C-alpha cells in the first residue's frame, strides 16, 4: 500500500472508531438502564478529566517522545493556578502563564 493510501486508511478507521466511542452512549441514552452507581461515577467526570488533562502538560515536556520534568512549566502553571482562582478569567490565566514560562525559560537559560 502506498503511504498515501495507508494514511487515508488510518484517517477513516480512526474517524469511525472515534465516532462510535463518542456517539454510542449519547444514542443509547434513555434506551438502556442508568443505575445510580453509574450516575455517581459520571458526576465526577468533568473535574477528574480536566485535572488529568492539565497536570501532565503543566509538569512535563515531551522531547523526542520522552516526557521529562520541566521546572519552568511547573512554576508557570502554579502561578497560573493562582491567577485562575483569583480572576476566573481564561485569557488572564493564559497570558500570565505563558509570560511566566518565557521568563522562566529565559532565566534558566541565563543561569
Amino acid at each position: 500500500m502506498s503511504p498515501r493510501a495507508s494514511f487515508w486508511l488510518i484517517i477513516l478507521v480512526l474517524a469511525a472508531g472515534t465516532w462510535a466511542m463518542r456517539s454510542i452512549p449519547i444514542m443509547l441514552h434513555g434506551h438502556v438502564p442508568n443505575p445510580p452507581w453509574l450516575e455517581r461515577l459520571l458526576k465526577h467526570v468533568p473535574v477528574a478529566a480536566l485535572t488529568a488533562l492539565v497536570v501532565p502538560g503543566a509538569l512535563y515536556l515531551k522531547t523526542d517522545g520522552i516526557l521529562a520534568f520541566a521546572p519552568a512549566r511547573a512554576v508557570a502553571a502554579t502561578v497560573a493556578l493562582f491567577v485562575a482562582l483569583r480572576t476566573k478569567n481564561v485569557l488572564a490565566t493564559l497570558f500570565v502563564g505563558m509570560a511566566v514560562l518565557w521568563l522562566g525559560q529565559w532565566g534558566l537559560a541565563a543561569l
Partner: protein
Amino acid sequence: MSRRKHSVLAGMKDIAPILVGVVPFGLVAGSAVVRAGFALPEVVGMSLIVCAGASQIVATTLFIDGAPILVVLGTALIVNARMFIYSASIAPVLSEASARLRPLLGHMLVDQNYVATMTQGRLRLDVSIVPYYVGAWLALAGVWQVSNVAGAVLGPLVPAAWGLDFSVPLVFLALLTPSLKGRTAVSVALVSGVAAAVLVPLLPMQTGLVAAIAAGMAYGAWRDRRTGEEPA
C-alpha cells in the same frame, strides 16, 4: 431573536476564550501532517472527519516514526477512549435531542465542547442546551480547521522553543478552577492530578490519562457513598 438562535450564539460566545488554546494545538496537528509528507487534502480530511486533536497528533507522529498501521490505530483510539466517558456523562444533558440528531452530536464531542457545555451552558437558564452545544462546536470546528491549515502552511516556521503547546493545559486549568467548589471536588482533582502526574509518564499510549480520570471518578463516587451524598 429566537431562543434557538440565542442559544447557538451563546455557545459560540462561551467557547470563544477556550479557542485561544485550540489554535496552537491545531497548528501542531496541521504541521505534523505536512511533516509526514502529505498536503492540504490530508490535513483538511483528517481535521474534519477525525476532529480529535490529541489523537490526530499521536497518529501522525507514529506514522512518521514508521509504526505499523494497527499500532497507529490502536494507540490513537486509546487516546480517544476518554470520549466514551464524556459521552456517557453528557448524554442526560443532551437527552432532548432526537434520535436522528444524536449521531451528529456525538461527532461534535471533544474536550473543549464537553467542558463548555458541562461547566457553563448546562447552568444557564436562558439557553436551550442542544443548540448551545451545536453553536459551541461550530465555532470550535471553524477555528480547528483554520488552525490546522495554518499549521500546514506556517508550521515549519514556528520554533518549538516558544512552548505554544503550553497554552493547552493553561486553558484547561482556567476552566477547571470554577468547578473546584467543595471538598469533594477538590479531593477528586487531587486524586486525578496525582494519578496523572505518576501514571502518564509510566504507562504507554496515553492509557495513564484514562486511568487518572477513572481514579478520580472512583474516588469521588466512593466518597459520595460514604458521606451519603446523592448524585446531582
